[in-house]
């Protein structure tokens, strides 16, 4: 035993114990809730819920305490924080790692469990719903256990000592008892030191946790073979909350990508983004299905499917992003923490729990019960032979198909009647189809693994093209459904009622589309006529939807203003789509250079090189790279944008300061800067730069001698120098005289500066005084005067270091991006209004 000094062993012991307590309490509660006894277990459950919540909160609190106190003997603390970092990012450290993000999920879930327990405390739904929720909790808590069972590691603990971590235990430095004195943490990823990053993950995980609640309601309903109307009223507010929070969380991620990452956009159809988008889309379908079920009984199948799927896709996303299967497909490089098997057990268990109750044949159900664990065993034994998966997936799909088929046959709903419910049902189906498409595209790496293929992940264009018709139809269905009532309608009558609004929408859409899309078609695939048409239809349907939902809002009485929530949320969604479509299709690269096409090669001429002090034209602006400044790890580049007036004058427009973080431990990370205007954004990103500071470098060029008369102009690389006049001062002593040459300098932007090199004449001796203008990088020596020829000699040096300092820069203009952000806010507002309306209505 080595007597280590300064370690806080108690923290890790408490942490381990609390994690185990939270796991055991969750597992026991799950069992307790399904137990069939005649005892009254109510108080036991209450106690259990509280113990569980306290233990989870204590784990989180302890980890934050350890991060604050810099307990670097713990691997998690060492890896995600250091002593230099700003303490406001302490929470980012908490959830940067995989263990921390599971802890976050666990924490939100434990709070939500209390909420559900409070809501259902006097209901018969309490036990079945809590049993599912605590089963979920037990699974998540097991991810943090970090214990070994028969050589298989279950979970990964955030309370592991650095010297016990497999990467470090054999390193010599941990053998020293004093190793802690020399240890500082590795620190937080620079990309995550961002305000968005402190709020985006907790919001997203709250959304993920919230999808678990409608899932728990639906699953308990399925196992009791009850109709969704039994649980729909209780699940509805949770579904709305899940939809709202998940939606906000996703778009916060978009805002983060837009503001802080160098993607050059807010959405890149990255697998990680998609895997939060799909649960949201399905939750939207689920919320509407529950709403439909509340208004009109029936549509049981779609309610069950669309409330169960969001959580299953959350699990699937967790599997995708945490198992390392995405490998080369994502810009987000997640590594395998050796929990793939555990995540798979988690996924398969819940798929089993969702599918098994709908298999009516008892033999088939038993077969499914045997097959599911068999898949795992086969996967564990034959690691590369996925035959078990083929059988299991086809078995699951066949039963789902039979189920949907039988429900379709049995349902008495008429799909094609002109009433709101029919169109809502169609919309729900259409969202399911859209989600399936995105999920299919995102799963290409999984398909590659399962079927040993080498397909490339689909390009952004492929996604955009496939989504165009889907979104058009979703927007049409949601708008049209909102014009109908739940009773019978006559389509022609409704059309007649909305004729003026529709015509106005058409006129405005034409006004937008003709200048933007028809006269100036965007580049890329949009130049093909049918995509151009698709864009126009999309814009038209957005405007139409906006107007008709506005009509709906205006028809609602002011006294029941809270009823407008649904229509507002729809307007918000339409604005998000409109903003996304317009800013993406009309995104212009300001730094694109004309370049000869090389046949067969896709070249980007998307960036330019700017030398310090140079001014070049970028679209409507003139741009100067003015300055480079190092503040700690960050190197800031000052980029000035100018307007040029008709009289050739440069008026400063705005200044941007993109930066590159030069982190010795993490590498270099660029952080773009964006100027926001009402109508558009200008995004500027330094793609490549020399980060060494050369401002004070002694890099002056060889002196060049110039001979000139008054009125002459010397032209330099960056400036014009005009010999304006001379001033002569006779000194006190008769023999001395000082001659000052007045030079008027003009830079490329036409702004002027003055230079006054002087020459002293003492006893017929010429004593030149070097004159330097540091910020212009100019050195002048006025050294000779020829009175008879009225000419002067002057040597000029320019700072070569300034000339050699360059950046490679990209700039984009995103028009109408604010429509998107306004849409997000309107959507959130509308959804929360609906949520509060429902909560107040059900409590009063």
């Amino acid at each position, binding site marked *: 035993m080595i007597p280590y000094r300064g370690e806080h062993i108690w923290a890790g012991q408490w942490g381990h114990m609390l994690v185990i307590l939270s796991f055991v309490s969750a597992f026991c509660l799950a069992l307790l809730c399904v137990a069939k006894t005649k005892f009254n277990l109510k108080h036991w459950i209450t106690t259990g819920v509280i113990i569980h919540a306290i233990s989870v909160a204590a784990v989180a609190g302890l980890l934050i305490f350890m991060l604050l106190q810099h307990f670097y003997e713990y691997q998690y603390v060492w*890896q995600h924080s250091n002593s230099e970092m700003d303490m406001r990012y302490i929470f980012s450290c908490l959830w940067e*790692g*995989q263990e921390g993000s599971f802890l976050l999920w666990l924490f939100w879930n434990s709070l939500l469990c209390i909420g559900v327990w409070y809501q259902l405390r006097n209901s018969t739904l309490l036990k079945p719903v809590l049993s599912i929720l605590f089963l979920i909790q037990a699974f998540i808590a097991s991810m943090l256990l970090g214990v070994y069972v028969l050589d298989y590691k279950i979970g990964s603990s955030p309370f592991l000592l650095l010297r016990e971590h497999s*990467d470090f235990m054999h390193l010599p430095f941990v053998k020293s008892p004093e190793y802690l004195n020399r240890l500082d943490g*590795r620190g937080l*990823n*620079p*990309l995550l030191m961002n305000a968005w990053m402190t709020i985006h993950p907790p919001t997203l995980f709250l959304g993920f946790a919230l999808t678990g609640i409608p899932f728990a309601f639906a699953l308990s309903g399925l196992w009791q073979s009850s109709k969704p109307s039994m649980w729909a009223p209780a699940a509805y507010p949770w579904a709305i909350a899940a939809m709202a929070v998940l939606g906000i969380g996703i778009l916060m991620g978009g805002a983060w990508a837009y503001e802080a990452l160098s993607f050059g956009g807010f959405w890149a159809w990255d697998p990680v983004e998609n895997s939060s988008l799909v649960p949201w889309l399905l939750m939207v379908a689920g919320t509407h299905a529950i709403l439909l079920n509340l208004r009109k009984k029936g549509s049981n199948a779609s309610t069950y499917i669309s409330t169960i799927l969001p959580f299953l896709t959350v699990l699937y996303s967790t599997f995708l992003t945490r198992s390392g299967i995405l490998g*080369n497909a994502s*810009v*987000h*490089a997640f*590594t395998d*923490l050796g929990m793939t098997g555990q995540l798979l057990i988690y996924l398969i268990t819940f798929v089993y729990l969702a599918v098994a109750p709908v298999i009516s044949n008892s033999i088939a159900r038993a077969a499914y019960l045997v097959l599911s664990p068999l898949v795992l065993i086969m996967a564990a034994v034959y690691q590369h032979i996925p035959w078990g998966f083929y059988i299991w997936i086809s078995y699951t799909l066949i039963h789902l198909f039979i189920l949907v*088929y039988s429900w*379709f*046959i049995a349902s008495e709903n008429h*799909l*094609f009647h002109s009433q709101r419910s029919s169109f809502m049902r169609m919309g729900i189906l259409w969202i399911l*189809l859209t989600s399936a*498409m995105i999920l*299919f*595209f995102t799963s*290409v790496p999984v398909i*590659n693994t399962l079927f040993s*293929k*080498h*397909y*490339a992940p*689909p*390009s952004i*264009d*492929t996604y955009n093209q*496939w989504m165009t018709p889907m979104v058009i139809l979703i927007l049409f269905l949601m708008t049209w459904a909102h014009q109908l009532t739940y009773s019978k309608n006559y389509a022609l009558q409704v059309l007649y009622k909305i004729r003026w609004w529709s015509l106005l929408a058409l006129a405005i859409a034409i006004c937008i589309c003709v200048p933007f899309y028809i006269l100036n078609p965007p580049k890329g*695939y949009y130049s093909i006529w049918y995509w151009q048409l698709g864009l126009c239809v999309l814009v038209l349907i957005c405007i139409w939807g906006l107007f008709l939902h506005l009509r709906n809002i205006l028809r609602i009485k002011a006294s029941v203003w809270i009823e407008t929530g649904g229509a507002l949320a729809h307007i918000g969604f339409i604005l998000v789509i409109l903003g996304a479509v317009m800013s993406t299709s009309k995104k212009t690269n300001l730094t694109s*250079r004309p370049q000869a096409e090389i046949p*067969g*090669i*896709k*070249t*980007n*001429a*998307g*960036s*330019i*090189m700017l030398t310090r002090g140079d001014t070049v034209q970028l679209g409507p602006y003139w741009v100067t790279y003015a300055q480079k400044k190092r503040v700690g790890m960050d190197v800031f580049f000052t980029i000035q944008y100018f307007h040029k007036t008709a009289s050739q004058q440069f008026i400063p427009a705005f200044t941007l300061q993109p930066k*590159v973080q030069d*982190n010795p*431990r*993490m*590498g*270099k*990370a*660029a952080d773009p800067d964006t100027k926001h205007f009402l109508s558009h954004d200008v995004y500027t990103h330094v*793609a*490549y*730069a020399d980060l060494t500071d050369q401002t004070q470098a002694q890099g002056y060029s060889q002196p060049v001698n110039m001979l000139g008369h008054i009125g002459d102009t010397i032209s330099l690389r960056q400036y014009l120098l005009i010999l304006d006049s001379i001033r002569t001062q006779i000194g006190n002593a008769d023999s001395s005289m000082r001659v000052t040459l007045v030079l008027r300098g003009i830079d490329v932007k036409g702004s002027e500066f003055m230079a006054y090199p002087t020459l002293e004449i003492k006893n017929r001796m010429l004593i030149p005084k070097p004159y330097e203008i540091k910020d212009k990088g100019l050195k002048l020596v006025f050294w000779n005067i020829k009175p008879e020829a009225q000419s002067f000699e002057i040597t000029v040096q320019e700072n070569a270091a300034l000339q050699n300092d*360059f950046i*490679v820069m*990209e700039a984009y203009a995103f028009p109408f991006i604010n429509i998107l952000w306004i849409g997000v806010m309107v959507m959130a507002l509308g959804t929360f209004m609906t949520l509060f309306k429902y909560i107040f209505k059900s409590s009063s």
Partner: protein
Amino acid sequence: MTKSKAFALLAILVGISAIGFQLWKSIEAPSSGSLGYANFTQAALQPGKEFHVVGTCDRKRPMLYNPKVNPDIFSFFLTDQNGTQRQVNLHKSKPQDFDKSEQIVLIGTIQDSVFEASDILLKCPSKYNETTSR
């Protein structure tokens, strides 16, 4: 089952299978974009077609980035997963964290024995993940 319902079911089935077929085609044989992951040898069999190539940069051989001539060309040598080496012309600015990258995914075509890449994905120890830099 009524006649209209059977018809609707048939229409839905036909519709979904048509969409499914198109989806599969867009993955298997995309009309534009990359045909999939390949090594240099496979990509060279179909010059002019786009592929994803995974490999590592050979840092012993020259890397050329001269933004004064063209900020959007960066040349280096990549060793693919089979060990084959080829010159790569990346038609983009040199990624800032290129020097720390481990694995590289390039998207591009082979033209005259040079791999002309239009896009690059870097796997760095820095991005997001947990890999410790040892």
